[in-house]
């Protein structure tokens, strides 16, 4: 079973990949509270796509977890699981529980 620290590391690694392409004075903060989606998002729409697909790919390739982070379950929640790093991490832990 995948742990909280591992999921955090996966998400932060994806954010680091985005930072590598950003200006030094425009870096995304590495924090559980970093907003990923919504009006306060630290990412633009393409960066958001990158984060979701990078995290999915890492869960698949590195941890053999074939999950979709953009399925009906995620889309239909009253509170978006993509809101912050923390909410995304908790969503991943939830859908991979027992896997």
């Amino acid at each position, binding site marked *: 079973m995948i742990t909280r620290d591992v999921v955090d590391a996966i998400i932060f690694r994806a954010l680091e990949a985005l930072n590598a392409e950003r200006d030094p004075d425009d870096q995304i903060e590495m924090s559980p509270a970093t907003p990923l989606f919504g009006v306060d998002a630290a990412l633009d729409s*393409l960066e958001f796509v*990158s984060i979701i*697909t990078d995290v*999915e*790919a890492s869960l*698949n*390739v590195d941890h053999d977890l*074939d999950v*979709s982070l953009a399925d009906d379950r995620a889309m239909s929640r009253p509170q978006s699981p993509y809101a912050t790093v923390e909410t995304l991490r908790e969503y991943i832990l939830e859908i991979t529980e027992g896997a």
Partner: protein
Amino acid sequence: MQDTPKYPGTVAVVTGARKGLGRLIAGHFLDEGARVIGISRGEASLTHASYEHHAVDVGDDDAVRALFAKIARSPGKVDIVVNNAAVLTSIHAMLMPAPRAEEMVRTNFLGSFFVSREAAKLMRKAKYGRIINIGSMAATLEPIGDSVYAATKVASMTLAAVLAKEFAGYGITVNTVAVTALETDMLDQLPREKVDAAVAGLPIPRFATPDDIFNVVDFLASPRSSYITAQTVFLGGVHS
């Protein structure tokens, strides 16, 4: 095979690879040095050291996702996708059974979307990809009996245009080659006189050959075609 193959080191996914045009295109890529991943609902009809086949319904989103999860692990990349899988029921609209209509929408349209979406996730990392949809002259000729089939082909062209915009930043092009009648088993589902009449009405009134289609596929699949996207190339003089 030519002296200098066109696709060494290239991984190409071809849907509907078991028969008809898909099998021809898969064979062409193999002849030109590509590694080919073929997809169809049935078992493989090709045997080649560089060919692997997956019996997957492209209209089944979960199955497509699971397949590309495997591809992500090995070979870990996709350079070219040819969305060829299609089904055709030709019958007057008033007689079209709903399951046949739904099957055409699911395979011809949603299948292209599911495969393109998953392939683009892999292509994104390499910032390179070529997605080629196999369209049809039915999209513009609008033959009687082909209401749903023709509509799925038009929808696929629109899909390609939007995906071209969404994927452009990742170096992925999305184009369509709209083929005329080719002697494949799909033609057996149409009255021969109807096909002959359609071909006779073309500006170039003959059946397409496989090489006519390979020529355009090679053009759209070329690394040199990086500035060509959201386009539909009609064969035989058909135009929109």
